[in-house]
């Protein structure tokens, strides 16, 4: 892939200059910190508010498992949104402005052009997840019993894999269209489809939605019931989306 290194440096520099890397990291870290805090203090807050109304609600004492569940939910939802926002304009905007055509007049293959963009999006998400993971682990260990570091790391990897699937589908949309909004629409359509299919018995585990359940189990030190299925399904989604992007882009008129 001629020109990949140079284009990757350019894309990473752009992620830094446009503050996308900074914003995504700050948002993810904020959710990483907030998740164990919410798990720890939400029952107390609700209990106090209900008490003012004369209602007595008994909550079980919050545990590490609650913090893990909260972390996966919060980061999963925010991460998917961030993945779609990062990928929606990556190729479409460059086609719209004519800069894609300009770059491709240089000794740069189309595969390298796409790969640099996909890697850069993945890198931003990865940095954000690492930051959130460290912050979330630290606060969970401080407020509750420390979870298994290995299991927590695997959970973060699964969350990142899930985000990457949504980013890859939106990236495909960005390659197919000239409009970032249309690309985002494709990403959101995928999100909706997976949310519907994910709750179906039998098939549900064969979707990226199954990664969250597996991640929670891993971080809690348990063996997840289904791990291979959602992982393989998600890798397949990413592969199909990226290969589709390349097939669409390699002979596309710009």
């Amino acid at each position, binding site marked *: 892939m001629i020109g990949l290194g*140079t*284009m990757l440096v350019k894309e990473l520099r*752009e992620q830094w*200059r446009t503050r996308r890397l900074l914003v995504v990291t700050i948002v993810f870290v904020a959710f990483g910190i907030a998740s164990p805090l919410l798990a720890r203090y939400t029952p107390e807050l609700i209990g106090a508010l209900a008490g003012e109304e004369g209602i007595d609600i008994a909550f079980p004492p919050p545990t590490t498992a609650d913090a893990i569940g909260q972390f996966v939910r919060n980061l999963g939802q925010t991460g998917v949104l961030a993945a779609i926002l990062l990928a929606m304009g990556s190729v479409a905007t460059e086609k719209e402005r004519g800069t894609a055509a*300009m*770059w491709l*007049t*240089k*000794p740069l293959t189309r595969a390298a052009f796409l790969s640099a963009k996909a890697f850069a999006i993945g890198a931003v998400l990865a940095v954000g997840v690492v930051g959130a993971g460290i912050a979330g682990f630290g606060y969970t260990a401080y407020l509750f019993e420390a979870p298994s570091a290995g299991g927590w790391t695997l959970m973060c990897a699964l969350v990142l894999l899930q985000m990457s699937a949504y980013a890859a589908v939106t990236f495909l949309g960005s390659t197919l269209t000239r409009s970032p909004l249309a690309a985002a629409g494709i990403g959101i359509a995928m999100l909706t489809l997976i949310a519907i299919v994910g709750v179906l018995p039998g098939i549900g585990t064969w979707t990226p939605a199954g990664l969250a359940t597996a991640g929670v189990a891993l971080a809690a030190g348990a063996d997840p019931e289904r791990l291979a299925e959602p992982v393989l399904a998600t890798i397949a989604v990413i592969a199909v989306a990226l290969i589709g992007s390349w097939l669409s882009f390699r002979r596309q008129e710009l």
Partner: protein
Amino acid sequence: MRGRELLELAGRLSGIRGPALRSRIDEMLELVGIADAAGRSISGYSGGMRQRLGIALAVLARPPVLLLDEPVSSLDPAGRRDMLEVIGRLREHSTVLLSSHVLNDVERVCDRVAIIDSGRLVTEAPVDELLEQYAQPVFRLEAEASSAEALPSLAEALRLEPWVVSVDAAPGSLRVGVSDDSEAGRRLLAILVDRQIEVLALERMRPTLEDVFLRLTGRRTDEGSAA
């Protein structure tokens, strides 16, 4: 992204690195006249500056042939003039193939011209040769307002002269294409004196590529293109 950074990236993609890349970028920025703005963000560049940066980007790797399609079409008159000067300087580095509908621009910067009409190559030759071979001498006559009424009959009379090829009338003026400019110069003055037409201006116009284009294609200038 800044102008210099864009050129650095393009240079690296073309395999140029280190001091060679820096000196090449400096040279290209000087060539296109945006050296002072090289450290500024491209988003703040004017249309003309972006065009110049695009030219610098195109010639950075010293391509033997450079294709420019309507390179001044979106520029204001000053930007257009400057860009044509830049294109004129590019001939020291590359063979430039410029495609344009604006024949004055073509005449100004090109050594050779190919006229293409409806996808068909009509002719291809050096500019001077084309002008010499195809452009007819043209006289432009502008009459005083008091003689303007006499111009239609003058036009009719001129059309009968053997040395007149064409007469185009406009309010207050005539454009007379001739086959022999020395004879036309003598005879035209005599006819004007004879008819007592008060002349505001009489000039022998330099033939242009537009005249050549019109003669060779018989079309309006905006329907074809020259390169």
